[in-house]
């Protein structure tokens, strides 16, 4: 029987057929992506999976690349006799770190100490692709539906984001290359710490900078407060650390975080 697609009935059947194909393909591609992601043995995905699903470490280090490249867990373990994991992640800010810690606690593990390497980008509005809520959601999307604390972050984007997350493939958007790397390309790490190699230029010198007034992001500051409250509630020692830099970096961003921390 030939469908007369110019009649509404035929058109609706054709639309249904395409939608069904879409759903099936989405499920197939999404399932393969999920399988690949969840068996990650190296790199950022493995570290994220470890922190969310397995870590029972006493000390957790959070922060951006500044944390992941500069805090050596084995030194903490050696000095303090406590297990330590570096959960720092490039380009991530307070949203991501709060969700990671809250999900870990939700799973049933409360670390004894959390060391948060803080940056003023944890308080400022940032126009770029990093240090934003979108960056955090993109990284955490494979875990949507697993932890309430992760889901609450997605809720900040409203119903449109929930609609998009109905697609299994969407959760693994742009992650294919990273998933392959995290499965097949061994990367050196020491309990999450990613060593950087190289040498600072001989001309590197300390630079005195003026006080910087940036536009504060109130939502980020709210999440700084949420992290403080979360650690207090669960009797976790929280240390905000301002890493040494080759420049002075006074700003209203740091001051806003210091105000909450004190």
């Amino acid at each position, binding site marked *: 029987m030939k469908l007369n*697609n*110019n009649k*509404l009935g*035929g*058109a609706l059947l*054709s639309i249904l*057929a*395409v939608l069904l*194909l*879409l759903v*099936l*393909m*989405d499920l197939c*591609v999404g399932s393969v*992506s999920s399988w690949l992601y969840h068996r990650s043995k190296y790199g950022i995905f493995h570290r994220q999976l470890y922190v969310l699903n397995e870590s029972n470490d006493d000390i957790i280090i959070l922060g951006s690349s500044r944390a992941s490249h500069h805090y050596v867990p084995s030194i903490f373990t050696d000095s303090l006799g406590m297990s330590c994991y570096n959960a720092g992640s490039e380009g991530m800010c307070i949203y991501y770190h709060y969700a990671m810690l809250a999900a870990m606690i939700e799973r049933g593990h409360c670390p004894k100490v959390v060391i948060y390497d803080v940056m003023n980008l944890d308080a400022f509005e940032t126009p770029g*692709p990093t240090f934003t809520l*979108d960056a955090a959601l993109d990284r955490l999307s494979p875990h949507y539906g697993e932890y309430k604390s992760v889901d609450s972050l997605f809720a900040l984007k409203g119903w*449109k984001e929930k*609609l*998009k997350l109905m*697609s299994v*493939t*969407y959760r*693994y*958007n*742009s992650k*294919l*290359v*990273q998933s392959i*790397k995290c499965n097949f390309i061994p990367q050196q790490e020491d309990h999450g710490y990613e060593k950087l190699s190289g040498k600072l230029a001989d001309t590197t010198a300390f630079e005195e900078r003026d006080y910087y007034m940036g536009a504060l992001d109130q939502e980020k500051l709210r999440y700084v407060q949420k992290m403080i409250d979360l650690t207090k509630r669960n009797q976790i020692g929280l240390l905000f650390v301002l890493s040494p830099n080759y420049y002075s970096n006074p700003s209203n961003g740091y001051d806003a975080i210091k105000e909450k921390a004190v």
Partner: protein
Amino acid sequence: MLFNTIHFVIFLIAVVIVYYTIPVNKYRKLYLLAASYYFYACWNVAFLGLLLFDTIVAYMAGRFMGDKEKVFQKRVLWISVVLILLPLFSFKYLNFFLAAVHDGMTALEIAMQVPEFEMLLPIGISFYTFMSIGYVADVYFKKIRAEVDILDFFLFIGFFPQIASGPIGRAPSMLPQFKEKHPFLWDNLAIGARMMLWGFFMKLVVGDRAGIYVDTVFGNFANHNGGSLILATFMYTIQIYCDFAGYSLIAIGSARIMGYELMANFRRPYFATSVTDFWRRWHISLSTWFRDYVYIPCGGSRVGEKKLYRNIMITFLTSGLWHGAAYNFIVWGAYHGIAQVIGKMTLAKKLATCKALKINPEGGFKRFFDIILTFVIVSYGWMIFYVSDFRTAIEITKGYFHLGIPYVHQTTLFFFSIGFLILFIKDFKDEFMPEKHYLLASRCVPVRYVSFAFLSVLIVLIGVLGGGQFIYFKF
């Protein structure tokens, strides 16, 4: 409301469903007009006033011209053109004009202070301004009778698929379409949806992905070697094509779903064999607008050689200025004008060289060479278009000669390569084998459906899904 957002997809579905349930064409058009103004107001409600101003001026100008004598019509034409251009000039060019006056005075060592106005550029103003002027000119040149139906006219200017970034519609082809009621046709839905899907693919998978690399390299050009700068230039060439052509396809597809046919805006521009050919394939609605309302009124090609070159330069200088209120856009326009003038000047020599070297001027080798050469010329022009000042353009040009291994961002380049390969294969097929029908255009229904579903999932898997801005939004 950007095209590549869930908000727009839901809006379009709602508009289309209600549109086809309204039985009377007059009410359909009223509904479409309301939807179009809602679409425009989502950016900024205040700017709706400017759209209405241009629409009313153009409509009234057409009505005033009527069957009056030519002298009166000419007066109405010029007054209406000035009035229509007023908002565009004020919002887009005033600051640039004042800065240029200041620069001129400074060069003459005359001290002068000029005010600077902080103004948001209304979305689509360059497009609907040109549509309005085009209409008034068409009435004057008797290409169309003045539109009497106010609803049809308002819809012509404000139609939501084209209002933000074109294509720049022409009254003779569009207004008659609003007169007839369009029944639901599966073919329109299928073709429109395919166009939109391909538009999303171009924009999200290829254009936006290239943009990540381009912004990274050009944003920090001093720290990148020639290899990276050349690769970024190439990727920007692809990005701007995919961004704009993708957007146009989404616009054309949206209109087609409702039964309206907008003009094609791109025809595989990077297969052009000369800069002149490039402008027959790139932003066709704009290039034909400039041809019909600037180039031809100046005399076109029916003049002596010197005047022909003058007409080309006038057309491309104003085209450059249309693209942006900054010196680099004017330079970019001049660059294209000069390239075409040189092309015309050297045509005879090129043919003589081909004859001497026994190369067939219509042959594949010559065509391949011309395509590559045109691509390189156009790509360099896009670099000038991208940067905000001459110094940066000069520094980047110098940087091209410090060759080295390009900066590689694996995820970006891998996904871009997949998208670019698919795009290249499709455009190559359309250019050289237009009679063949594969995948999305296959004559076999299951193949079409599977291709549609696969491309959709591919967009979701490797597209940049984050509501990025369209480059041409600046206009």
